[in-house]
């Protein structure tokens, strides 16, 4: 998931050897992500579901690297997989006592859900392929991916977050179409998100705080027999 070849693309594109590396790795990560996502649905044991989800999100992080969005890929690895899913796994560990580890869902629901999902998928794929603009490079059949910039840098992203949009248009280099001056950056949403995160975490901590309840007394196996027989 991590050996992104964004740097090597220009050289690869030049290599005429027929094999389009970018495609190969894309296929690898895409297959990984999708199969594991399906595995999450099929798995019964909740811990296995969590594990498959971790791998599938790792694969999507690889996809982000491939798409040149390195910062987002690293972010996904760190925040999403390293943070959120660890939280999720903690939740799974705390609640996965024997009875709840694998709750079976009746087959009837599964079939029904599969049908609905399949229909929705067909519609979406048809939409994805139809748009001419999107299949872009396939239409032009241009010489593979002409990556203009040399080493992708996270600087413009950082600058945008601080409020200065420097990206304009990567390839053609002309200013943003409408008003010609630089579009406003993301400073405000950025601050809002940080405050939002604070409030949410405080709320979550408050929700899950310890509550005062009469302890259920010293029940449980009597210590003297050790309960370990």
């Amino acid at each position, binding site marked *: *998931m*991590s*050996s*992104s070849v964004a*740097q*090597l693309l220009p*050289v*690869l594109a030049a*290599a*005429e*050897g*027929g*094999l389009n*590396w970018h495609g190969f790795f894309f296929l690898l990560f895409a297959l990984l992500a999708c199969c594991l996502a399906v595995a999450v649905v099929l798995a019964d*044991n909740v*811990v*296995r579901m969590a*594990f498959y989800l*971790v791998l599938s999100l*790792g694969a999507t992080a690889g996809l982000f690297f491939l798409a040149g969005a*390195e*910062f987002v890929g*690293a*972010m996904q*690895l*760190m*925040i999403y*997989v*390293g*943070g959120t*899913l*660890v939280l999720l*796994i*903690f939740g799974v*560990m705390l609640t*996965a006592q024997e009875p709840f580890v694998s709750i079976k869902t009746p087959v009837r629901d599964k079939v029904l859900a599969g049908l609905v999902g399949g229909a929705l998928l067909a519609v979406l794929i048809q939409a994805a392929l139809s748009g001419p603009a999107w299949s872009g490079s396939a239409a032009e059949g241009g010489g593979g991916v002409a990556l203009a*910039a*040399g*080493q*992708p*840098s*996270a*600087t*413009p*992203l*950082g*600058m945008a*977050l*601080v409020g*200065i949009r*420097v*990206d*304009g248009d*990567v390839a053609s*280099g002309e200013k943003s179409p409408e008003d010609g001056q*630089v579009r406003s950056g993301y400073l405000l949403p*950025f601050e809002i*998100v*940080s405050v939002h*995160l604070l409030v949410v975490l405080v709320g979550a901590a408050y929700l899950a705080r310890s509550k005062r309840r009469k302890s259920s007394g010293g029940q449980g196996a009597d210590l003297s027999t050790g309960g370990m027989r």
Partner: protein
Amino acid sequence: MAEYLIQTVGLPGWLTWSLLAVLSAVLILNLMAGGALVFIWAERKVSARIQDRLGPTRTGGSFGWLQSLADGIKLLAKEDLMPEGADGMLFRVAPYVSFCASFAAFIGLPFAFDMVGLRLNVGVFYVVAVLGLEVFGVILAGYASASKWSLFGAMREAAQVVSYEVPLGMCIVVPVMLAGTMDLVTIAEKQAGWFTNWYLFHDPFTFVVFWVYVTCAVASVNRAPFDLAEAESELVAGFHTEYSGLRWSFFFMAEYSSMFLVSGLAAVLFLGGWNGPVPIATLLGLSDGTGESTGAIVRLLGLANLLGKATLGVLIMMWIRWTLPRLRIDQVMTTCLKYCTPIAAVMFAGAMTWLWVFPGGVLNLDDGSRRPGEIREGWLEGPGGRSTAVSDAPVDDAPALAEIAEVSK
């Protein structure tokens, strides 16, 4: 290397590239496996020295250097048991998850000027992110061994590693800010020249941050006073109680390679990566001092430097392990939340003001880097903006980047 293969040997394009990819993967794998072997032997010798005894002497000649090989063979021969009632698939996969996590992190670590797996622009961020994934292997191992004790160990370690990522991240942000970029290669380049250029001596705040970083690194790798997971006295080897043979050795290798990785990272961020204390290469005129055009010898020198610093870090970790008793789980947590994080935050603020007051850095003899402010103008006025800015020396990212890393923690 690739051109040579394609022209002379006439291999088809895609075969050469796959060969090269496999080669680099194997190189890093060897580094880890070889490193682990050397460190196992070193651990035995260091602990022996500290405890006033000899350590392995008979295996393989005088210094017992074949000892870790003997261990390896023993581990291979051992039968891989699996407790019944354990979750088969997860039990088998767990060691490989934690191994791959530390393996993947090696890609970002620069060993010499151009010797780096992949020169990521978000190098440091990527390495820290992947280091955080090692926790999954531990949790799965603890859960899958279906025994109460290993679940305890896994939970403790997961809580510890996750909570120590916060101060670790904050400590890493300071050198990133000083260098203005997260790209490890650029950070190391900026510390070229005499050791006074190292970020360690850049300002008092970074000096303190280095020591906080060392504590957090030791904790996030589960060594020395923080090794709760395998606290023999309480939990009988914690999460890898049920493992034996090859699987256990993967955990072991993962631990040693992440130890090497964390001390390597410390070397790059604070101790000038491949730049030796005395810039021999420049003195001998081999390289022109900017680290640009470096011949093979200089790179080798650089490699020796970094390996030396990283091994030094690992030896110090071993030294700490054999002298200090172990902390309790709640003491570990309090040191993290009540001591490491606030100190790191204050030092970060201090370093920022220091940078503002002394832009070029007091001790920085050759003030190569431009002030962060200039970078912003550089972006704005260039019409084509991006393309021109990119062509010259690697771009210094604005401190804004630091804020993203800050918020995203």
